[in-house]
Every structure is written in structure tokens, then in C-alpha cells.
């Protein structure tokens, strides 16, 4: 299979613990995959490996045909990443951040940036350190959507938002995300979110993808809960 993201036999040890073991994952173009799994299942480690921030002990990762370690520089412009906590300086404002990022992303769309900043009322001149959780999440999502990347990677980007804010954030993402020829991986704990936005869900347990399903084949949140329960301990 030739997905936007192809992971084969990925193994990663941290100290004595094997966090990921022989993990295979393929993210087809045009799809959103939601990655579920309990705390410590290795979701964030997988995200760091995909970004080239960690070196695998074994296995291969290809994103749009590129190797995150070898081709890190080129790949950075093709990934729209939202970390679970904003990884920017507290003194930066969102407009500082976008100015800094714009030249690094060849496909950065000022139109998408402007639409989302307006839609979400992202404070442009408030420092990140003073933004609420919701405002910071929105500001970071703009930075991941405006570059029109090949691969969207949202690491718990929707957690900790109150329900109305989360709906507002989701609506903006769904309006602006471009999936044609691209893929998205959304890491979350929220099963309802998975049923809403995923084409496929993958459940991480014991260091590998222990279960995978098309959301269309599931009967809502109940079935998904059962699926997650059947592989997690």
C-alpha cells in the first residue's frame, strides 16, 4: 500500500522499556486516522518519531516518501504539527509565530491564516504565555493548517477545551483542512471526537496497533468503546 505515511516494523526503546514494538501503520491519502490508546501506550513517542525528533531502534518511517531523520529539513515544511502543549516561547504572539513560520513553509496560505484568525478571534498581539488553553490551541492550529501540509499531525490538540469551544475549533478545522492527496493523524482520548472526524481509528496497545477499524463500520461510540476495551488493559 502506498500511503502518505508508511510505518513498518517500528521499534523504540526508552531505557529498558520497549515503548513501540514492530509497529505498522499506513495513512492513506484523503483520510483522517484517529489514534487512541491509554496513557503510556506510546502515542507521543510515535508522534516524536514521525517528526524525526527521536531515532527508531528498528523499522522505517516514510512521509510523502521522505525519511524524517535523513530528510528532516525538507519534511518539516510538509508537516502541520500541533503539540499537546504549545512549543513556542511565552513572549511570542501568534502574529510573531506566523511571521517566523511563513518563510519555512512553501505552501503557506495567507488566506487560510486570515480566515481562521478571524473565525476563531485568535488574539494576534497577546503573548502565548497569557493565552487561555482554547486560544493557544486555536493559535497553534492556524500554524498547522495554513501551511497546507502533506501530513497533519494533531497531538491531543482538542483536549482540555470546553465543549462549545471544542465544537467551534473542530468546525474551523473541518472547513479548512485539505485532505485531497494528504493525510491526517489525530491523537486523542476522546472517543466521541474519533467517531465524528475519523475515517479510521487505530488503537495503540502493547507498543503496536492492536486494533484498527473503519468508523463507517462501527455503530457509534458504544462499538468504539468496546473495540478499545477489547485490546487495552
Amino acid at each position, binding site marked *: 500500500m502506498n500511503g502518505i505515511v508508511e510505518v513498518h516494523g517500528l521499534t523504540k526503546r526508552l531505557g529498558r522499556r520497549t515503548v513501540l514494538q514492530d509497529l505498522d501503520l499506513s495513512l492513506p491519502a484523503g483520510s483522517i486516522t484517529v489514534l487512541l490508546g491509554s496513557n503510556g501506550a506510546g502515542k507521543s513517542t510515535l508522534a516524536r518519531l514521525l517528526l524525526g525528533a527521536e531515532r527508531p531502534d528498528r523499522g522505517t518511517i516514510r512521509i510523502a516518501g521522505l525519511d524524517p531523520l535523513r530528510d528532516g529539513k525538507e519534511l518539516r515544511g510538509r508537516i502541520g504539527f500541533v503539540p499537546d502543549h504549545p512549543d513556542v516561547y511565552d513572549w511570542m504572539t501568534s502574529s510573531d509565530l506566523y511571521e517566523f513560520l511563513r518563510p519555512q513553509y512553501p505552501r503557506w496560505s495567507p488566506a487560510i491564516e486570515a480566515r481562521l484568525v478571524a473565525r476563531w478571534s485568535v488574539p494576534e498581539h497577546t503573548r502565548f504565555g497569557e493565552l487561555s488553553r482554547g486560544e493557544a490551541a486555536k493559535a497553534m492550529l492556524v500554524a498547522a493548517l495554513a501551511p497546507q501540509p502533506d501530513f497533519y499531525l494533531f497531538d491531543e490538540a482538542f483536549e482540555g477545551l470546553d465543549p462549545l469551544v471544542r465544537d467551534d475549533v*473542530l468546525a474551523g478545522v*473541518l*472547513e479548512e483542512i485539505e485532505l485531497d492527496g494528504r493525510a491526517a493523524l489525530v491523537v486523542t482520548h476522546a472517543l*466521541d471526537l474519533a467517531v*465524528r472526524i475519523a475515517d479510521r481509528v487505530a488503537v495503540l496497545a502493547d507498543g503496536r496497533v492492536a486494533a484498527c477499524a473503519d468508523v*463507517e463500520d462501527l455503530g457509534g461510540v458504544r462499538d468504539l468503546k468496546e473495540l478499545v476495551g477489547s485490546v487495552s488493559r
Partner: protein
Amino acid sequence: MDWTVDLSADAPPSRQLARALLDAIACGDLAAGDQLPSVRQLAAKSLVNHNTVARAYRDLEHMGIVRGHNGLGVFVSPAGPRIARDERRAGTLAEFRRAAGEALRAGHAADDLVLHVSKLRIRRIA
């Protein structure tokens, strides 16, 4: 129009959306020739993914209710409202038969049920 998707329902989101659109077309909220929201717009409104909306649109297209015009969007077909009404009628009739059968088995008198239906009709006209 209500585009919310019930996550606890057994029907997958795409089928729920197709059903909501079918209702909207059957009752005239969307008339022949009217344009449906773009996939993106409806995805954002109902908070589901693009492919889910596209699947609902495809289902309606297969039924002849809507028609996609490349690049222009998706429109209610000339025969769309009639097909949607027939479809809703067939579906609701089957549901009604099942419910009426259950009511009879539970001991309701047939005459009483007829009375209930007549009352509903009066309420609708009024």
C-alpha cells in the same frame, strides 16, 4: 436545519446525514434546483469528516435525488423532491406498520389506534 449527528445511534454518521438531507428535500426546505452546502461547509456544520458528507451525497446521488455538477456543486435534481417523498413514505410506512402491530399485540383496540391517527391528522391541518 438541524445537521447534528447522534453519536450514540447505531446508524453511521453518513447515513444520518443522508436521512436529514432526504427529510429536508421531502418537506421542501430544499427544492428542485437548490444547491446543497459544499462538502466542507456541511462537514463544518455537522462536525463530521469530509468523506462522511461525500458518502451521504453519493448515496443521494445513487437514489437520483441530487446531482453533482463538476466543480459547480451538488444540486437537488428535478425529480429529487418526488423521489425523496416516496422514499420517506415507504420508510415511515414500514415503521408505522411495525409500531401499529406492536400496539395491537400490546392490547390496544384497532379502533382506538385509528382514532389516534385521525387526531394527529386534525392537529396537522390545524
